[in-house]
């Protein structure tokens, strides 16, 4: 991802009200991490496992933050338990910012990622988590704002899967 795109992504998160981000880094969107870390209006929390990325972000949401979880799509599988129990069953809105490896629009797709990518969306659907694939930067800020509004309205996680231009 170009640095300019990373800046827009972080600006888009801020404009949508995101002020708390938990993360386990991955390859496609990782340029956003130092930008969030250096922003005094945002709290960045490093975790060891995507499952706790979800539970910590959920706790922050209940405490009044507007939280996002940044993860690779492999993290969907790892965090599925807490996405379902805390996210869906308890009903806590979270924005999931996901590097979408191995999907058709992933410009760095290979045999390493394709199986992971193929099952990501069916797994989200199986949990009743709505999503959008973001392939280009057109109206990026608007898409993020819409996703946060949807998460808050649904009282549930909402996933943005970044590929295409974001995976170059």
């Amino acid at each position: 991802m170009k640095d300019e795109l990373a800046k827009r992504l972080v600006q888009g998160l801020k404009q949508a009200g995101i002020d708390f981000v938990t993360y386990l880094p991955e390859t496609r969107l990782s340029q956003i991490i130092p930008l969030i870390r250096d922003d005094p209006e945002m709290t960045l929390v490093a975790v060891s496992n995507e499952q706790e990325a979800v539970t910590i972000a959920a706790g922050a949401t209940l405490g009044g933050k507007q939280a996002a979880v940044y993860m690779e799509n492999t993290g969907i599988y790892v965090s599925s338990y807490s996405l379902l129990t805390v996210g869906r069953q308890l009903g806590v809105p979270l924005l999931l910012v996901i590097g979408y490896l191995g999907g058709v629009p992933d410009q760095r797709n290979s045999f390493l990622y394709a199986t992971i990518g193929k099952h990501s969306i069916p797994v989200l659907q199986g949990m009743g988590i709505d999503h959008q694939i973001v392939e280009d930067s057109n109206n990026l800020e608007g898409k993020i704002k819409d996703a946060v509004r949807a998460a808050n309205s649904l009282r549930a996680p909402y996933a943005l899967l970044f590929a295409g231009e974001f995976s170059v």
Partner: protein
Amino acid sequence: MIRYECLELLASKITDQLVVTSQSGQRIEWSHLSRHEGNLLVGMMGCAIGVATGLALALPHRKVIALDSDGSVLLSLFNLPTLGNLQPKNLVVYVFDNGVYSGSRISYPTATAGNTDLAAMARGAGIKNTRTIRDLEEFKDGALKALTQNELAFFVCKVEESLMHREIPRPNTDLAENKYTFVRYLERTEEKTIRFVGRG
């Protein structure tokens, strides 16, 4: 020492702390002992410490208590290094370690009935103020005092298995009801708006 005795002592100390419970008999016992609106009775194993950590980070001026069990902590060991590095000063974790999966009804042993020492694991993960508590006097003198201190604390309370939670009424509030009571309580006491709650 049984868990219920510890929870009775803890309940007497609750004022405006936020209390997050895991899923186990303690959830039933705590809801019986405490009607505090700042209780969040998370109904799943392996999630309480994470949710409590998020609350502690979001509200650093507010004391947050996590009530957990050995089975639940073993399911979410990744919380330990995260806590060891974050060191939220306003978080106190009580792990009631009875050495069995009591909810399974056959009480098969957890790893802590064998060679596993959760306090040693927490210490190794970077949580400095961690201690194993073995009797009620120690619980009073050591574990409860942490509520007035400004330091992350992690107590592994070795308790005998007790079936008290099967003799008392189960909580009749559902998860959503409890969540909204909790966030409305936070809105009132923090004088702030929790962004997602119902404004139609």
